[in-house]
């Protein structure tokens, strides 16, 4: 691709309420995924594989974990003399720590509009991290140029009953691919196909800056995504259908499910081993050691682990120690955690550096995995942690239960 033809925007002001408490101290973009990745690796790889050399990362003020992971962008080839990574953080004006800026993020784009001008790019592609996918950005651009629309928006067709996010927006698209309307998925009734808006857009950089300026001139507090939702309705816009693996990370349960999905080879191939293999920060870990007493089945395991116990149907991150006679089943165990001998974990998500003392039992359910927060030490007598969770069947209220604004 010719230099500077396209620049990328990573729109990371995504609501962190959805995956609480995993997102208490990190944005969705930094959620660890599939033993060694973070969600931000996917759009970063997609953009750089397509030859995008200039990427603006627009975030709220919670930059530390993103910056620590991405740094110079070397792993994605972004540390060259051409372009590179540019970070634009927006301080939270009302001081809340959950990543919702009541003024909207549009002002952050407006304040840094120079970025678009300096990039000298003809097109801009906008992506987030909540829609976990592996997409060919070049193909979207080709489609965009061929179809001659003002804006191209990416969607995934799903069965209505498979949709897990009623807050996502759905597109109405006519036979020649034109976008005719956009509404909340929650308003869709009955069965049939839903065209989920993946909030991935391509448009002329000039048009984008015009849209941002107009909205700010009218003094509206809103988010870039709202502006683009309006624009795809008001301007001639085209849909681009994505057919690969997609998970909308809208809840802890969806996050858990996405990890479990990777245990199926077809999903792992589609998301991680396909044409675009996903790049991530490189760590120098020793190979994983399996002892004589280990028994590991149907599981993904990263480097640097010491496995002495039993693991089944689980996703194990780097530097995890599982002692003899410990049982880990249907769980996600993040980096640096250790599980003592005789402990038993079913349907559990351990955040980073959690220590499970010997003989501790944690039993969640498929729809409500137990989440243990970063750096916790859990023993049999830990207070406040339900060691057995029963399925409430009332999935609709889960999100609200985790929402600190409502509780």
């Amino acid at each position, binding site marked *: 691709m010719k230099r500077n033809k396209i620049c990328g925007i990573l729109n990371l002001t995504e609501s962190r309420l959805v995956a609480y408490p995993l997102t208490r101290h990190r944005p969705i973009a930094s959620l660890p995924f599939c*033993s060694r990745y973070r969600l931000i690796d996917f759009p970063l790889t997609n953009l750089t594989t397509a030859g995008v050399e200039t990427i603006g990362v627009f975030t709220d003020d919670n930059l530390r974990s993103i910056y620590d992971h991405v740094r110079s962008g070397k792993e994605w080839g972004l540390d060259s003399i051409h372009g590179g990574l540019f970070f634009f953080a927006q301080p939270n004006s009302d001081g809340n720590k959950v990543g919702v800026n009541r003024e909207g993020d549009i002002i952050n784009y407006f304040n840094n509009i120079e970025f678009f001008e300096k990039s000298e790019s003809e097109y801009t592609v906008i992506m987030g991290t909540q829609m976990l996918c592996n997409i060919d950005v070049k193909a979207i651009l080709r489609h965009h140029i061929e179809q001659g629309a003002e804006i191209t928006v990416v969607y995934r067709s799903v069965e209505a009953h498979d949709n897990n996010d009623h807050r996502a927006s759905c597109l109405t698209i006519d036979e020649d691919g034109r976008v005719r309307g956009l509404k909340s998925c929650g308003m869709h009734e009955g069965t049939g196909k839903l065209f989920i808006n993946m909030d991935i857009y391509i448009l002329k950089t000039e048009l984008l800056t015009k849209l941002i300026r107009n909205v700010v001139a009218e003094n509206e507090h809103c988010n870039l995504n709202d502006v683009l939702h309006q624009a795809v309705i008001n301007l001639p816009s085209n849909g681009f259908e994505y057919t690969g693996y997609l998970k909308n990370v809208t809840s802890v349960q969806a996050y858990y499910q996405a990890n479990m999905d990777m245990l199926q*080879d077809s999903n*792992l191939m589609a998301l991680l081993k396909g044409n675009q293999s996903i*790049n991530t920060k490189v760590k120098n870990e020793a190979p*994983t*050691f399996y002892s004589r007493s280990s028994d590991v*089945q149907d*599981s993904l395991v990263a480097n640097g682990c*010491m496995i002495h116990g039993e693991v089944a149907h689980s996703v194990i991150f780097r530097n995890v120690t599982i002692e003899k006679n410990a049982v880990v089943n249907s769980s996600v165990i993040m980096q640096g955690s250790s599980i003592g001998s005789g402990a038993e974990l079913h349907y559990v998500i351990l955040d980073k550096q959690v220590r499970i003392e010997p003989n501790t039992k944690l039993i969640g359910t498929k729809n409500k995995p137990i989440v243990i927060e970063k750096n916790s030490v859990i023993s049999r007598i830990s207070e406040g942690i339900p060691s057995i969770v029963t399925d409430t069947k009332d999935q609709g209220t889960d999100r609200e239960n985790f929402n600190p604004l409502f509780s």
Partner: protein
Amino acid sequence: MCGRRWDCHSFSIIMKNEMIAMILAGGQGSRLGKLTRTIAKPAVPFGGKYRIIDFSLSNCSNSGIRTIGVVTQYQPLELNSHIGNGSSWGLDHKDGGVTILQPHSSLDGEKWFEGTAHAIYQNISYIDSHNPTYLLILSGDHIYKMDYEHMLHFHKRKKASATVAVIHVPLDEASRFGIMNTDNTDRIIDFEEKPKVPKSNLASMGIYIFTWEILRRYLMESHATGQNMDDFGKNVIPTFLANGENVFAYSFTGYWKDVGTIESLWEANMAFINPDHELNIRDKSWRIYSKNPVAPPHYMAAGAKVKESLVVDGCYISGEINHSIISQNVKIGANSVVKDSIIMANSVIGKNVTISHAIVGEHAVFADNAQVVGDQSIEVIGYNEIVGGLNDEEK
């Protein structure tokens, strides 16, 4: 070894270009047979995710050495691409970095490196351009962890012209090494290359620190008089001793292994599996770095049985693995058994395959039902080799 870092001298840092390192990585390693037919010995894979030269490079990085020349000659392609700009070891410094030094022709004719010291002589201009006070000479084919800064302090304290790192070997093996005889101040009084009747068990590790000014003078003089000093062990050290230079033996006590033969390479790998191995590969304060290609985590299928083994990213394991090392992106099919073996990266092993006492090179392919069982000696399957399957007539 790393405990010794915090001795009396611990907090000084090697100053910019006080000492630079030259890694001699040109050797063919012909005793490794198929494994070094197309690549240099320092580039031979080790321990599932390393190459032999990673140990020297990581030691340099951890010892604070910022300028390193890697002298290559034999089959350098894979080695060069592995080293790249040195960023994998944190050696892509603004001042310094890794430079690959290859033989080249000039007005004086072709300059193939005739020996270890000759390779240094040929690269005098590179060393001069960094103007170091001390020169560290390393070999690229040893497995060990060592703090060269500590050795430099020893060299300075002894006011030595040359310091040779030595290790105690069993006396009955001493006749395989260059043996140093020292007085009670560690000063070397006598050097014997592979002596029939060794007087001591202090074997040279092929690691030297020279005061550069002195070594440079000897190299220049010997070349000017036509008495080329080609080899450090055979020529330079004896000449230094004959001229009464201060040559000292620096005693090293950690794990050190020259993996020069198939048997020793296999043995060193097998010992490396043990999590209590002396090398302590999981020690975060002295990491061994390598070039790490990104691969997804490894997947253990239902039915996989892995015991006492090391497994690396990107693998798909369905069979049974016992006391083996499985490198990156290896596939092992159902009902296959791998025992006491090393499987190098990107090999594909089909179903019902049996592999025992073997070293399998990168990108090897095993058809279903193939068998490779090393009995008395270790079986070696070369890089890209195909084992089993129908031959042309059977098709």
